[in-house]
């Protein structure tokens, strides 16, 4: 009898472990692992999945077996045996879970230490969340972009913050997530390992636009990345392009860029007029001031409050100077 | 019935299994929850004190508040003397001590009002800074507890004058005392955490 029980439980144990192993190794529940960190996280995930599978089928199996095997037979109105407990059994199912938990805890800690180690000379990328968009800055190049590009295989540290409420920067393919909290900068280290385009999502409820606060990260070869960077810098410093990318053309008329907006005053020949607007203020200063604080002077016939007031953040000082010079040069 | 069961049966009549009075247990449990309520406010104050440094705290007048503290401590003495009076069957003396408690409580509140108006004069306001918000909220909630205690003391006083308590029946006074002493203890901690520790 005793041997038989042991034999049966051995069989059950082997079957369960095999099952757990199969599920853990075969299950494909995660998006592509596009960062080195993702590989380690997925490994941990598979281990947890295997352990849980064993426990799951052990308990559910016992449950189903008990329901089938021990259900009351018709006409049998006697009680079950008065078993109140079994010390060794209770100690067993206290110690084994404890052991499992300790192992999982240690392993998780190792993975945590490893994934949060930034690696040698990581590139810094600043990530700014605002309702409801992600903006990016490459401080080394002093370059602000609306797209996130990363060179494959190069360690990067994201410095994440927010301008309004809490957002959470999440690239599922990287497995990393970090809240963008106003008033503080939190870091997340990543090393992309796969070339491709992966979605970026906001994971913390941030208001009505929460579900549309998405972007994408482009992981590309070093060369492609460098040329992209160069191109972005060129755009940033070519005022004509800047005039378009910053969105000025949407509201202002300017012949050379072919814009015909009428929301704001026309900007052709601005140099001539700009001088007389502010008392004792030359044209250059007037134009710069009008970009930074649009409601400072309202051209007669136009409404205040229409032009965004955050160009000071959106554009670098150099870009603003470039714009001013560009506008002054327009006949 | 086992011997222990008999004991239980007798306690039960008085509603006192474990030999403890349910009103007292209830009061202590309420105090426990109050500890955690002030805990939330104190944790907030300390968090900001640690992160922001609270330079404005130098504006606080330690000595004046120290005097106010001793007033509250004295009121606690009055309460406990009142309790021991009624336990000795001296209802009249208890009423005197309760009256004293009420007066001391009101004095403390007056002191707090003076302190607040002084700080407002200095430009430290509830909405002016994180320090103002944390300070006035924490001390203000303590003040509200003192106010509630004064009202409760009035009720106990009136009941006492109506001969509601005696050397045997005085749980109403004791339970009120527990509350009052707890409010006193909260102030003892606030005095150190807000005023003394830089």
């Amino acid at each position, binding site marked *: 009898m005793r041997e038989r029980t042991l034999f049966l439980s051995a069989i059950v144990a082997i079957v369960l472990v095999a099952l757990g192993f199969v599920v853990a190794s075969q299950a494909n529940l995660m998006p592509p692992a596009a960062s080195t960190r993702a590989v380690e996280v997925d490994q941990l995930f598979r281990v947890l999945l295997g352990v849980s599978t064993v426990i799951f089928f052990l308990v559910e199996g016992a449950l189903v077996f008990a329901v089938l095997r021990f259900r009351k037979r018709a006409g049998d109105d006697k009680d079950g045996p008065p078993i109140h407990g079994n010390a060794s059994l209770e100690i067993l199912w206290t110690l084994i879970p404890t052991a499992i938990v300790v192992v999982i805890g240690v392993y998780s800690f190792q993975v945590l230490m490893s994934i949060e180690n930034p690696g040698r000379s990581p590139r810094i990328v600043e990530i700014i969340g605002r309702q409801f968009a992600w903006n990016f800055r490459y401080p080394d190049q002093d370059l602000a972009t609306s797209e996130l590009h990363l060179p494959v295989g190069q360690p990067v540290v994201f410095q994440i913050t927010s301008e309004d409420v809490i957002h959470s920067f999440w690239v599922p393919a990287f497995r990393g997530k970090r809240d963008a909290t106003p008033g503080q900068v939190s870091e997340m280290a990543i090393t992309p390992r796969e070339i491709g385009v992966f979605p970026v999502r906001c994971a913390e409820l941030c208001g009505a636009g929460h579900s549309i606060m998405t972007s994408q990260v482009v992981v590309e070869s070093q060369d492609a990345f460098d040329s992209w960077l160069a191109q972005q810098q060129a755009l940033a410093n070519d005022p004509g392009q800047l005039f378009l990318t910053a969105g000025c053309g949407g509201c202002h008329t300017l012949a050379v860029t072919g814009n015909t907006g009428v929301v704001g005053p026309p900007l052709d020949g601005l140099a001539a007029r700009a001088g007389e607007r502010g008392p004792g203020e030359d044209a250059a200063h007037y134009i710069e001031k009008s970009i930074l604080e649009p409601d400072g002077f309202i051209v007669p016939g136009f409404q205040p409050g229409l032009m965004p007031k955050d160009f000071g953040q959106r554009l670098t000082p150099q870009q603003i100077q470039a714009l001013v010079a560009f506008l002054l040069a327009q006949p | 019935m086992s011997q222990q069961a008999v004991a239980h049966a007798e306690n039960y009549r008085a509603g006192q299994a474990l030999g403890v009075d349910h009103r007292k247990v209830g009061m202590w449990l309420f105090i426990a929850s109050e500890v955690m309520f002030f805990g939330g406010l104190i944790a907030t104050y300390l*968090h900001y004190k640690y992160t922001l440094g609270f330079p404005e705290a130098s504006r606080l007048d330690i000595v004046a508040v120290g005097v106010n503290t001793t007033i509250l*401590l004295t009121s606690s003495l009055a309460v406990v003397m009142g309790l021991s009076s009624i*336990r000795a069957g001296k209802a009249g003396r208890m009423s005197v001590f309760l009256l004293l408690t009420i007066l001391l409580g009101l004095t403390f509140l007056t002191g707090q009002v003076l302190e607040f108006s002084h700080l407002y004069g200095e430009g430290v306001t509830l909405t002016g800074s994180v320090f103002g918000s944390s300070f006035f909220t924490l001390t203000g909630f303590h003040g509200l507890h003192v106010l509630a205690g004064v009202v409760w003391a009035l009720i106990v006083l009136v009941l006492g004058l109506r001969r509601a308590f005696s050397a045997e029946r005085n749980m109403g006074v004791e339970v009120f005392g527990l509350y009052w*002493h707890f409010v006193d203890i909260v102030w*003892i*901690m606030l*005095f150190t955490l807000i005023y003394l520790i830089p």
Partner: protein
Amino acid sequence: MQAPSAHPARRWPLYLGVFLILILLTVIEIMVAGSGLTPPTLGIILLALSFSKAGLVAAFYMHLRDDHRLYTAIFVLPVLLLMVFAVLSVLI
């Protein structure tokens, strides 16, 4: 285990003594705060003083000293929890 109300009349010297100690401790606190001690030591001393004051009130005025242990447990456990919570909230 109930609070002994046997000789209540004789308890007032005890209460008065406790009161005097409380006042004394308060004075000491203010003097310590005034002394030029540095924050870590200063904080520890001041906390020790205030906790002893709170302890005196709880033990004698709230009768925890000679009342049922249950009451002490109900009071002390949340205080400990509060201390843990406060420390972790400061560090968070």
